[in-house]
């Protein structure tokens, strides 16, 4: 990383900078499984060819090529990500087809880089050669597309960067232009969320697995579910923050991926604050093309459902992810329906209740992420109600640690509220001390290293 940074800024021109970033991104991606690099290169190649064909054609052909590009990207994703699910669902696992489909490995980051490929193809189709931000020369085009898809800070777990956001930024970068304060803050916050919060909570939420949770008290089960909600936020928001900081060091600005999601007072607000790069992607490239809210009300609800179920499936090749998406889709549709028929405006005094309701619902849905089997999810919920509520000192310890590691996430969200109501100068002045404390905690209180949850998607 340090070597890449130094030679990147020593490089005399844009082309060299692009090549250095591409090479380092390839090394980063191939580090553990070099063979998977071939798939990334294949995906990039498909998109380069598609973009070139779209740019060189007119009318119906343009549409045909872009459709083929979208289908090719989706086929790659479907083959590598969903073959095991198809194998398990429709074939006997010991049949030759079934065992072949189940054995196909899931390449890390495939959901992210194929979505970026889709964005590139669609944006190229939607724009003409003057507005597509793509260079005309073949060499430069290949380099720019490769860099856009393989850019290492966001390659394996996002944020999903849209082509129209990234491509205009490809120009010569200078060391003097780095916003050091922004980058350091993003990196410290990201590493704190990941290493101190998520990695420590992970060692506690480990016990949410079947059959371990069968032995726990009702209090412990609730605390663990709450802790997992905090963990998944800290894990993913942490990675996104690190990605933003790293990209900033190389002169690129990525969009914020999280905006204090747990203060949301509605499900639609939650999706404007959680994994923003995915929700805006789904909105721009799926919900709106489906008709969005421009058709009938019933069609709007259906579009919401389709978008969320597919969004759920994007997260993983298991039916539980589809159920998770459907649950959010239903919540969004009901919320919209209630607003449509009643136009009811909630009094401000009930805001906290709404926030708590949305948080509780979202947290309950995370069970579908944590437990692979739907039956285990049901069992967990049943256990929360039927198990002995308090079993002694072990419960206290568990609640203490989950509380302690969740506290910073709660404070983080609280700061957002305070900022809205109080003098921002106060926060500006105490910011350095705050980040100093976070750095101190990274040094002395990091948990055991664990993979980022979103790597599996």
């Amino acid at each position, binding site marked *: 990383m340090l070597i890449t940074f130094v030679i990147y800024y020593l490089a005399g021109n844009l082309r060299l900078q692009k090549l250095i970033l591409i090479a380092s991104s390839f090394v980063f991606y191939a580090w553990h499984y070099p063979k998977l690099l071939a798939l990334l290169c294949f995906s990039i190649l498909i998109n380069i060819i598609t973009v070139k064909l779209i740019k060189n054609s007119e009318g119906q052909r343009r549409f045909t090529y872009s459709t083929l590009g979208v289908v090719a990207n989706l086929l790659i994703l479907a083959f590598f990500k969903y073959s095991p699910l198809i194998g398990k669902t429709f074939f006997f696992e010991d049949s030759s087809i079934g065992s072949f489909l189940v054995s196909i490995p899931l390449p890390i980051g495939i959901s992210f880089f194929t979505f970026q490929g889709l964005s590139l193809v669609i944006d190229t189709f939607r724009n003409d050669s003057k507005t597509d931000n793509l260079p005309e020369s073949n060499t430069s085009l290949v380099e720019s597309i490769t860099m856009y898809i393989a850019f290492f800070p966001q390659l394996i777990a996002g944020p999903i960067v849209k082509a129209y956001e990234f491509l205009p930024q490809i120009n010569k970068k200078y060391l003097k232009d780095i916003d*050091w*304060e922004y980058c*350091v803050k993003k990196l*410290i916050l990201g590493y704190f969320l990941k290493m101190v919060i998520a990695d*420590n909570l992970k*060692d*506690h939420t*480990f016990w949410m697995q079947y*059959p371990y949770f*069968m*032995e726990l008290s009702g209090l412990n089960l609730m605390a663990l579910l709450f802790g997992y909600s905090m963990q998944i936020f800290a894990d993913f928001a942490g990675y996104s923050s690190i990605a933003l900081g790293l990209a900033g060091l190389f002169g690129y600005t990525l969009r914020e991926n999280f905006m204090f999601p747990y203060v949301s007072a509605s499900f639609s607000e939650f999706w404007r604050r959680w994994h923003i790069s995915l929700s805006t992607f789904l909105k721009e490239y799926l919900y709106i093309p489906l008709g969005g809210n421009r058709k009938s009300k019933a069609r709007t609800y259906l579009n919401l459902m389709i978008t969320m179920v597919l969004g759920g499936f994007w997260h993983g090749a298991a039916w539980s992810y589809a159920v998770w998406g459907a649950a959010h889709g239903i919540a969004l549709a009901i919320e919209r329906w209630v607003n449509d028929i009643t136009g009811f405006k909630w009094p401000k005094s009930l805001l906290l209740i709404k926030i708590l309701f949305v948080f509780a619902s979202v947290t309950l849905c995370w069970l579908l992420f944590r437990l692979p089997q739907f039956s285990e999810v049901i069992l967990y919920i049943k256990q929360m109600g039927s198990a002995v509520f308090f079993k002694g000192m072990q419960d206290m*310890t568990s609640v*203490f*640690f989950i509380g*302690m*590691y969740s506290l910073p996430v709660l404070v983080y969200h609280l700061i957002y509220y305070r900022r809205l109501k109080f003098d921002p100068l106060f926060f500006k002045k105490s*910011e*350095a*001390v705050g*980040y*100093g*404390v976070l*750095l*101190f*905690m990274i*040094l*002395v*209180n990091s*948990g*055991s*290293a664990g993979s980022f949850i979103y790597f599996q998607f």
Partner: protein
Amino acid sequence: MIKKVFITAVVLLAVYSIVLKFLPAGLDTDQSQYGENVIKAQNFIYNNRPEETENVIVGTSLSTRIFTDSLGQGFVNLAFSGSTIWDGLRLIKAKAIKPKRVFIENTFLFKNTDYNLTDYVTNGVHSKLKSALPVLLEENQPVGVLKAVLVNQLRGKQNELVIDSTAVNINPEILEIQSEYFVHDYIEENYEYIFTRRLRAELDELLSNGIEVILYEMPLHPDFCSSEVVRRTRVECQKLADEAGIRFITLQNCEFYQTNDGIHLVEHSGLKFTRYLKSKI
């Protein structure tokens, strides 16, 4: 701003190092199962007083139920929950000061390890840093220290720790899952490889360093004690012990002990087994 951030962190580090000096010794600061393993491993690796590491127990989570302090002076328990004896043996190899006696548990010899724990404690820049700067050690993590201080405060108001001796009802589903280890998972294992090569190689290395080695059995649920896997393991261990000229502490009366899940002893049984082990050494 950046300068202020780093200065704040350094000042906090210095202040916290001083605070640690004033804390009572022997605080139980572990926060999780893995954290407890790391603290145990670090305390062993970074301990430079040979008299405190003369006797080392190497085991799985089953041996965490042994009351190590009751065995006498100089005992260290390298029993790791969720891990294996192979981690403990690797730690002994990595440490320059060797123990006089090593006790090796014989359950789950077929279970493999990824050596993440031992690698974390013995390799890399961070382990060197931690050996030099105690403030960075896992046992000194502020959240764990806070828990320990609070628990100490609470315990101070109570009497001595009471060991509950009431009977335990084991969840049948848990028992069924645990039985998989003994009925299915290890029945087809390569016993020859484990006993004539892998474990034998470890024993030979320990013996060549002048270390006395003792194999021992942990009590299990009576059904598991009489399983094919446990019986065969016992026979192979005895054979290995005879060949290598070492002792093997066997156990014939599993029904005298209680577990909470078929394999892990409840506290009063842990104490009973500790007394038994002590009488044999």
